[in-house]
């Protein structure tokens, strides 16, 4: 039998059901794996005692015949999800000692389904980043190193903001991890680390208890090692929640039914504006390969147009910082988190926020404050909201002509820690293919398709209609089958 830590969730559930191993044994293997992968700095907080206790309870449930859909499966939880009684930092110094007194809806649903929590995964502070370097607890290191000369001595980023989640799943130390996705934070790290990442439709999962970044864009995300594992886990964490007014009161289909269904008859759109001059040859090549794979699986390929594509990034970098500056106003040193004394109350606020936030968080708060300030609101924020509607209209039109879109995720493969950090705009350009669907509220799934000439993974994303994740899973499972990506990172537990 293969190592317990190499199993997919589907395989592990079968093994548990057949009594080949217990949840306690599965947890023990993963706790050891977490210890081995410590050099990656993927977890901010490890919770081995909780994992052992939950695994024991899982075995008891299974013995009684009352096991849940994910009973005994070892997970990491992104540190933006509040976990009752377990320190939740948002990977920020300002919440260094924050211990929530309540559980996020998504983690509660996963615990109800029986998952075992290994720890809290590192991210870019509050989700602000695409490399998992913007945090005092990192930088998180990718388990991949590639084949370029000197690659073995070069530390690569795992992507971000769900970098810890991606690194720990890719390194085979957790079977899945929650992420979040405000502008690509689950899909881009999945692509960089050769795993599956997903952003469901806005409103599909409750945002209650997820530490807010940009409320009109934030959605729970997920990282797994197969499309089938993704379908099963997403089904368990989705659903209406009265505590989140933006969660949708719609039935959750059994996404697992879509797995293995033929892609015959599906129409897949290729957005022509995404193919730009000077595009990285490996990314373009993988995209063309993905197109051919879906065609081979029976899908029809159609070219579509998203005319406002080039404006998605500037729209995002107005709306996201504006909403972030508003959401992060709550960190004032009064009710929770860090407090740095000052001569006056106002001084205390300013000292606390200067000491508690990273440079990138401060920069985004300042940009957000500026675009919302008197005299500039109409020119920036309102303008961005208007262009946002045009971007959504583009997708509405495109998705009348096809069932899903196939697109790249990141402009390159993973880069080294320290690169692209001098210029914020250059780092923002990393998000060029990912932010549009957040602005449009649509679901997207990242599937690993191949390796670049540097030996590093490249994924592609499928983008679907709102609340039609089932079609996405159908297309993604066909793409996964054709691509049969079986590469593993050189560093695994």
């Amino acid at each position, binding site marked *: 039998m293969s190592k317990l830590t190499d199993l997919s969730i589907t395989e592990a559930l079968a093994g548990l059901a057949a009594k080949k191993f217990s949840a306690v044994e599965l947890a023990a293997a993963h706790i050891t794996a977490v210890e081995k992968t410590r050099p990656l700095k993927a977890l901010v907080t490890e919770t081995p005692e909780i994992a052992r206790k939950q695994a024991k309870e899982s075995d008891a449930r299974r013995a009684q015949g009352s096991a849940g859909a994910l009973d005994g499966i070892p997970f990491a939880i992104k540190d933006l999800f509040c976990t009752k009684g377990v320190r939740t930092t948002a990977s920020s110094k300002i919440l260094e000692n924050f211990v929530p007194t309540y559980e996020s809806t998504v983690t509660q649903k996963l615990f109800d389904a029986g998952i075992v929590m290994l720890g809290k995964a590192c991210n870019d502070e509050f989700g602000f980043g695409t490399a998992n370097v913007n945090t005092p607890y990192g930088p998180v290191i990718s388990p991949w190193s590639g084949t370029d000369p000197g690659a073995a001595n070069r530390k690569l980023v795992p992507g971000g903001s769900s970098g810890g989640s991606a690194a720990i799943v890719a390194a085979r130390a957790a079977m899945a991890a929650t992420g979040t996705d405000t502008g690509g934070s689950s899909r881009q790290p999945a692509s960089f680390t050769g795993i599956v990442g997903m952003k469901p439709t806005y409103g599909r999962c409750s945002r209650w208890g997820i530490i807010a970044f940009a409320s009109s864009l934030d959605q729970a995300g997920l990282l797994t090692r197969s499309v089938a594992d993704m379908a099963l886990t997403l089904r368990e964490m989705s659903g209406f929640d009265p505590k989140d007014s933006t969660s949708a009161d719609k039935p959750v289909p059994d996404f697992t039914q879509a797995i293995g269904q033929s892609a015959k008859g599906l129409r897949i759109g290729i957005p022509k504006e995404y193919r730009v001059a000077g595009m990285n040859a490996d990314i373009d090549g993988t995209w063309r390969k993905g197109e051919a794979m879906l065609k081979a699986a029976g899908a029809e390929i159609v070219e579509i147009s998203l005319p406002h594509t*080039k404006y998605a990034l500037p729209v995002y970098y107005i709306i996201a910082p504006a909403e972030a500056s508003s959401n992060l106003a709550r960190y004032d040193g009064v009710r929770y988190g860090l407090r740095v004394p000052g001569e006056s109350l106002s001084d205390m606020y300013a000292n606390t926020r200067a000491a508690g936030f990273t440079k990138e968080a401060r920069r985004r708060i*300042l940009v957000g404050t500026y675009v919302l300030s008197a005299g500039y609101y109409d020119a920036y924020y309102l303008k961005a909201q208007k262009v946002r509607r045009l971007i959504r209209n583009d997708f509405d039109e495109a998705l009348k002509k096809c069932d899903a879109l196939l697109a790249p995720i990141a402009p390159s493969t993973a880069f080294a820690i320290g690169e692209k950090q001098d210029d914020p705009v250059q780092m923002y350009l990393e998000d060029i293919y990912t932010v549009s669907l957040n602005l449009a509220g649509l679901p997207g799934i990242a599937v690993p398709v191949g390796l670049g000439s540097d030996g590093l993974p490249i994924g592609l994303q499928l983008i679907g209609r709102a609340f039609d994740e089932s079609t996405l899973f159908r297309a993604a499972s066909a793409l996964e089958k054709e691509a049969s990506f079986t590469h593993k990172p050189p560093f695994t537990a």
Partner: protein
Amino acid sequence: MSIDAKTVAKIAHLARIKVPEAEHQQLTGELGKILDWIAQLNEVDTSKVEPLANCNDEFLRWREDKVTDGGKVDDILANAPAKTAGFFTVPKVIE
């Protein structure tokens, strides 16, 4: 439409973030660059477009106006940096 150091100082005050004098110049450059880059939106004609605040507008719903939660003073104060007698405490604001 670049910004100057005075504007940076003003927004830092509005955002209640202390920015040391020494960082003003660098920050002015960085923020100016970001703002210049996002100014390309001015190319788009939006004279007949309604703003889109959120993609869930079609399913926002009403609920009954009643209290559904509360009585959790200890929970709410559990992470407070300073508290006394069931309240958050802050530095003195009146003489």
